[in-house]
C-alpha cells in the first residue's frame, strides 16, 4: 500500500541527516599545539592570563588525570579516544580581550544569528531580531553569554545585571576579577579528582560562565549560555560555576550546537551549582550537539559532569534537560541535598534517533533532614538508538525523613531501538520514603492509525503522541524555550516512524 511504502522511504533518510545547525564558520583561529601535556595546560593558563594559583590547580588536576582510566560502566560503545590527537585550545582570532560587540569577528556574529541567538542587546530590547513569522513582541530579556570553541565571545546585559548586583561573566574573567569567589567555590562541588572527564576538564577548561547572585536578590532576567564547537579536532571543555547566595534566585539556560563533521568531537564540561540557605537555582539545558549522520558517522561525544550542592537549609536546585543531540551522551546532573529541608529536582527528556547512544540520569544524595527529591525522566528511542536511564537515590544515615519520587518512562518508536532503566536505590535511614515508578511503552500502530484516521499525517501523529508523553517535563522549561524544545523534539523524530 502506498502509505506503508512512503513510511519506509522516510525511515531510510532518518532525520539526523537533516541537522539544522551543521554549518561551519570560516574564521581564523588561534590553537594550542595538538596533544595534551603539562605544556598544554601552561599554554592555556597563559593565554587566559591566569594567576599562579589557577595554574597550580590545573596542573594538580592534570597529574591526577594521568593516573586515571576512562570509565566503562555506561551502556555506550565507541572506539577508544586518542587524547593526544586533539586540540585542547582554540580561540577565534583576534585573540585580544573583547570589550564590545563591534570587535567580534562578524563571521561569529553571523553564526549566532543563524542559530537564532541574538547577541545585540539593542535588537533584543526593541524586539526587531526575531525570525520572520515570529510575532511575539513580548519577548523577555535574556542575558546571553556566547562561547565559541574555547572562548567566551560576548556577554550581553552585563551593566544591567551589575546594577542588581548579579555577576555574570566568562569564568576566565571571573578568575581575574573575582578570585576570592572562584577560589572559594571552584571544585567545591565537583572536586578535581571526581572522575576521568571532570579531572580532564579541570586541567584544560578554557572558558564557560560564572554567575554569582548576592543574598536576597532575584536575578532580574533569565541567564543563558550558548556553546558552539566550530574547529575541527577540537575538544570543548567548558566550566560553569553558579552560586546563589542566601535567599536568592536565578534561572539559567544553556544551549549547544556544532557543525556537521565526519569525525567525532569531544565535549567534556563541568557544571557546579551552589545554593545557600533559602536560595534556588533553576538550570535548564537544551542540548542539540550534532548527533552524527544516518550511518552513525561523526557526532559529538558528550561526557559531562553536572552537580548541584544544596548547601544551605531550605535551598533548592532544579535541573531540566532536553537532550536531542550528540552521538554519545554520558551525563548525570545531580543534587547533593546537604541542607536540612533542601530539595532537588530532575526533569529530563532524552531523545535518541539514528545510531545515537544515551546513558543519562541523575543522582539524588540525601544528607540533610527532611530533604526531598523528585525525578521525572522521559526517554524516547527511535531508529537504531539505545537509550538508558541510570539513576541513584541514596539517603545517608542522618537523612531522617528523606523523600524521593521517581518516575521513569520510556517510549519506543520502531523495533530496532532499545530503552533501558537502571535505578540504584540505597536507604541507610529507616525513615526514608522512596517511590519508584517505571514504564516502557511503544507508540502502537493502533494509536497512529487512530490519529491518521482523524486527519493527522503520520509525522504529526508521532509528534502529538510524543509531546503528550513529555508534557510533564516541557512544563518545567521557561516559556520561550518550551516552544523551542517542542519544535526540536518534532524535528529530532522526523522520519522515525517505521
Amino acid at each position: 500500500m502506498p502509505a506503508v511504502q512512503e513510511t519506509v522511504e522516510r525511515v531510510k533518510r532518518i532525520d539526523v541527516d537533516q541537522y539544522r545547525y551543521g554549518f561551519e564558520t570560516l574564521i581564523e583561529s588561534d590553537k594550542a599545539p595538538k596533544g595534551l601535556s603539562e605544556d598544554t595546560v601552561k599554554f592555556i593558563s597563559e593565554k587566559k592570563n591566569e594567576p599562579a594559583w589557577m595554574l597550580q590547580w590545573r596542573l594538580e588536576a592534570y597529574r591526577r588525570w594521568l593516573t586515571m582510566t576512562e570509565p566503562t560502566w555506561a551502556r555506550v560503545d565507541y572506539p577508544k579516544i586518542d587524547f593526544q590527537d586533539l586540540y585542547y585550545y582554540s580561540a577565534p582570532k583576534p585573540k585580544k580581550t573583547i570589550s564590545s560587540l563591534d570587535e567580534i569577528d562578524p563571521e561569529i556574529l553571523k553564526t549566532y544569528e543563524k542559530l537564532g541567538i541574538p547577541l545585540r542587546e539593542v535588537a533584543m530590547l526593541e524586539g526587531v531580531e526575531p525570525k520572520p513569522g515570529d510575532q511575539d513582541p513580548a519577548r523577555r530579556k535574556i542575558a546571553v553569554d556566547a562561547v565559541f570553541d574555547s572562548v567566551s565571545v560576548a556577554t550581553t546585559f552585563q551593566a544591567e545585571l551589575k546594577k542588581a548586583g548579579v555577576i555574570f561573566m566568562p569564568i576566565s574573567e571571573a578568575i581575574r576579577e573575582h578570585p576570592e569567589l572562584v577560589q572559594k567555590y571552584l571544585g567545591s562541588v565537583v572536586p578535581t579528582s571526581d572522575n576521568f572527564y571532570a579531572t580532564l576538564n579541570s586541567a584544560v577548561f578554557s572558558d564557560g560562565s560564572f554567575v554569582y547572585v548576592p543574598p536576597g536578590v532575584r536575578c532580574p532576567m533569565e541567564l543563558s549560555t550558548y556553546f558552539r564547537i566550530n574547529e575541527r579536532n577540537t575538544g570543548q571543555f567548558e566550566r560553569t560555576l553558579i552560586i546563589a547566595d542566601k535567599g536568592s534566585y536565578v534561572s539559567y539556560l544553556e544551549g549547544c550546537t556544532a557543525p556537521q563533521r565526519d569525525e567525532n568531537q569531544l565535549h567534556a564540561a563541568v557544571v557546579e551549582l551552589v545554593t545557600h540557605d533559602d536560595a534556588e537555582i533553576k538550570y535548564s539545558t537544551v542540548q542539540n550537539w550534532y548527533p552524527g549522520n544516518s550511518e552513525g558517522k561523526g557526532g559529538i561525544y558528550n561526557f559531562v559532569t553536572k552537580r548541584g550542592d544544596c548547601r544551605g537549609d531550605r535551598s533548592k536546585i532544579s535541573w531540566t534537560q532536553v537532550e536531542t543531540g550528540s552521538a554519545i551522551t554520558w551525563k548525570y546532573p545531580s543534587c547533593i541535598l546537604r541542607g536540612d529541608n533542601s530539595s532537588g529536582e530532575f526533569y529530563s527528556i532524552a531523545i535518541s534517533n539514528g545510531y545515537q547512544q544515551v546513558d543519562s540520569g541523575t543522582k539524588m544524595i540525601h544528607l540533610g533532614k527532611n530533604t526531598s527529591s523528585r525525578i521525572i525522566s522521559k526517554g524516547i528511542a527511535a531508529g537504531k538508538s539505545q537509550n538508558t536511564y541510570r539513576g541513584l537515590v541514596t539517603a545517608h544515615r542522618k537523612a531522617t525523613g528523606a523523600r524521593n519520587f521517581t518516575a521513569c518512562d520510556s517510549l519506543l518508536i520502531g523495533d530496532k531501538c532499545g530503552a533501558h532503566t537502571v535505578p540504584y536505590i540505597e536507604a541507610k535511614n529507616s525513615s526514608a520514603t522512596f517511590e519508584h515508578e517505571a514504564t516502557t511503552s511503544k507508540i502502537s500502530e493502533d494509536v497512529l492509525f487512530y490519529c491518521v484516521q482523524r486527519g493527522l499525517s503520520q509525522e504529526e501523529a508521532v509528534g502529538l503522541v510524543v509531546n503528550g508523553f513529555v508534557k510533564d517535563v516541557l512544563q518545567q522549561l521557561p516559556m520561550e524555550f518550551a516552544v523551542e524544545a517542542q519544535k526540536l523534539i518534532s524535528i529530532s523524530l522526523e522520519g522515525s516512524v517505521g
Partner: protein
Amino acid sequence: MTALLEVKDLQVRVEEREILHGLTLTVNEGQVHAIMGPNGSGKSTLSHVIAGKPGYEVTGGQILFKGEDLLEMKPEERAAKGVFLAFQYPVEIPGVATMNFLRTALNAQRKARGESEYSTPDFLKKVREVSKSLNIPQDMLKRGVNVGFSGGEKKRNEVLQMALFEPSLCILDEMDSGLDIDALRIAADGVNALRSPKRAMVVITHYQRLLNYIVPDVVHVMSKGRVVKSGGKELALELEASGYAQFEDAA
C-alpha cells in the same frame, strides 16, 4: 440518488489469508446501511480497509468514494475527504488534552481541503455547542484523549468528533459493544442527530438492539467475507429471531 460509497468485488488478505472474497456494496447519500453478521465474517476488516488501516492487502476489486479511487489515498487524505470511522475500541493518548486533539485534527483536515483553520474562539464555541448536546462535560475535554474515560464516554467522544468533523461517510464499528442501555441511547441520539440527506452511515453490529435506536434503510448480512443477503430494516428482526446459522451454511 447519488452513490457515495461503491465497494466492487473487494478481495482482501491479511497475512496470506483471504478475509474478503469479492464483496460488493453501494451506499447512497443520505442512507443508513447496517452490516450484520457473525464474528469473523469480515465486518471489521471492511471498515478498516475503507479507512485505510495498514496491514491489509487488497488483492482485487475497488472502492470508490464520491467517484474517486479510495485505495489510492492515504488514510489522512480519506479523513479529509470525509471518511470517518468510529472505532470499536478508541485508543488512549496520555498527555494530549482531548480539546487539543480535536483542534489539531480538525485543522489538519481543513488545511488538507484548502480551508482556513478555525480561530480559537470559533473553535471553542463549536465544541461547546456539540459537547453540550452529547452530555459531555467540559472537564472531560481537558483530560488526555480517552484516558480514564468510561466505555460510554469513549463512544460519546467518537460521536463528538463525528459531529465536529462533519464527514460525509460515517462508519460505526460495533458502537454498542461495552455500552449499557443508557449509554447506548445517548450515543445513538447523537448519531441520529447527524443524519442528513448529504451524509451516509454504515453501522456495523452483531445485534439488532442497536438498530432499534439507529434505524437503518438497508440491512446487509455478511458471512465468510461476502454480503449474502440484503433487505430492509425488517431483515434485522428476522435475523434476531432465526440467528446467523442459515447464512453460514448458505455461504
